[in-house]
């Protein structure tokens, strides 16, 4: 991890790959639905990536890693519970789950909705209702899966501006899908 903090991508890849099996076993033991285990493992990896600067070489690695794994799997279990109760009362909106996740750091990555499958007609319609700058940012980051730097270069704006546009676009998209009017 110390090498990874210095930017050594090879060391980082080896470390994360070596953690896959124990993380999968941990998530299964926590009672996450079998179909969601891989999703939760990926959430843990993303959270570890985002928080990698919080590990310090003078402290052990494992408690740090398991704390992240526990937190992400607890979030996943809560989400499962919410989804089950929503399904029970039949109020789930198409695409709502993933858009809820857009606003929740530590939960699933926003890429999920826009990249894992074909865009649904509802999502295409919702995207078309966003202001052009926000739509472009959302499409570059999530549909085309460019990095922030690449997306910012393509849009001709700073990285911060692109992030703000994408954030606003995600929020507006959620509102449109929830039927709360114009973005």
């Amino acid at each position, binding site marked *: 991890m110390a090498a990874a903090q210095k930017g050594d991508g090879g060391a980082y890849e080896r470390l994360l790959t070596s953690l896959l099996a124990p993380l999968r076993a941990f998530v299964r033991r926590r009672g996450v639905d079998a179909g969601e285990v891989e999703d939760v493992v990926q959430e843990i990896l993303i959270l570890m990536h*985002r928080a*990698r*600067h919080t590990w310090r070489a003078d402290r052990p690695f494992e408690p740090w890693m398991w704390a992240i794994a526990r937190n992400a799997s607890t979030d996943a279990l809560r989400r499962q519970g919410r989804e089950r109760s929503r399904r029970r009362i039949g109020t789930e909106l198409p695409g709502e789950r993933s858009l809820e996740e857009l606003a929740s750091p530590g939960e699933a990555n926003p890429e999920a909705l826009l990249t894992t499958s074909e865009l649904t007609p509802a999502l295409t319609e919702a995207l078309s209702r966003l202001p052009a700058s926000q739509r472009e940012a959302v499409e570059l980051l999530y549909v085309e899966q460019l990095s922030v730097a690449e997306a910012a270069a393509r849009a001709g704006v700073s990285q911060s501006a692109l992030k703000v546009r994408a*954030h606003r676009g995600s929020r507006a998209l959620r509102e449109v899908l929830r039927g709360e009017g114009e973005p």
Partner: protein
Amino acid sequence: MSAGRSSEELIAGLSERLEPVRPLAPLHRQVLVVASAWILSAAAVALWLGMQPLGVVERGAVSGLLVTGLALIGLAGLTLGLAARIPGRERLALAAAAAAAAGVALVIGLGLALPGSVTDAGPLAEWRVCFERSLLLAIPSGVFAVVLALRAAPWRERAAGLGLGLGAMALGALLVHLSCPSPKPWHWLLAHALLPLGCGVPLGLLAAWVLHRLDSIRHLGV
């Protein structure tokens, strides 16, 4: 997520774009930074209003216990706010939460045990001045603490925000208590503890919202 790509592909993607990061400062150093901001505020108060640390203790047990309660909530709240954002420091965060709760219980217990009623606190104008000063003096340590929390892991915004809000307000109120010449215990309790701490909760929720929004923006596309 897994329908789109495998975990191995995700790891390859994260490793490919890996940028060096500066490790977060150790927790004790973060607490020292916030404490330094508080000490600077204390110096400003000493120059502006004058401090009477010995006088506070001479005013009796209620004053001494209030100082203890506020100091406990301040230190424990800020520690909770900072530790909650660091993976692997959950035990410390829990211990700090328990200490902050003990401080709140002490202040509430003082209120329940104090003879007389809230009308003994004096005119509204007096409370307002002390309350507004608490709010003002909470800003330096609160802002430093939120900036440090923002540098840490993007999670547990609510626990962190509430800890920081209560802690910063308690430290601000402590400075007000150390400089206020009022001899009235109900004034101390109301204007130096209950109102500032009550205000610390919505401020903490506001801090949590700020952390949540800035975390969301900072990690878009990662």
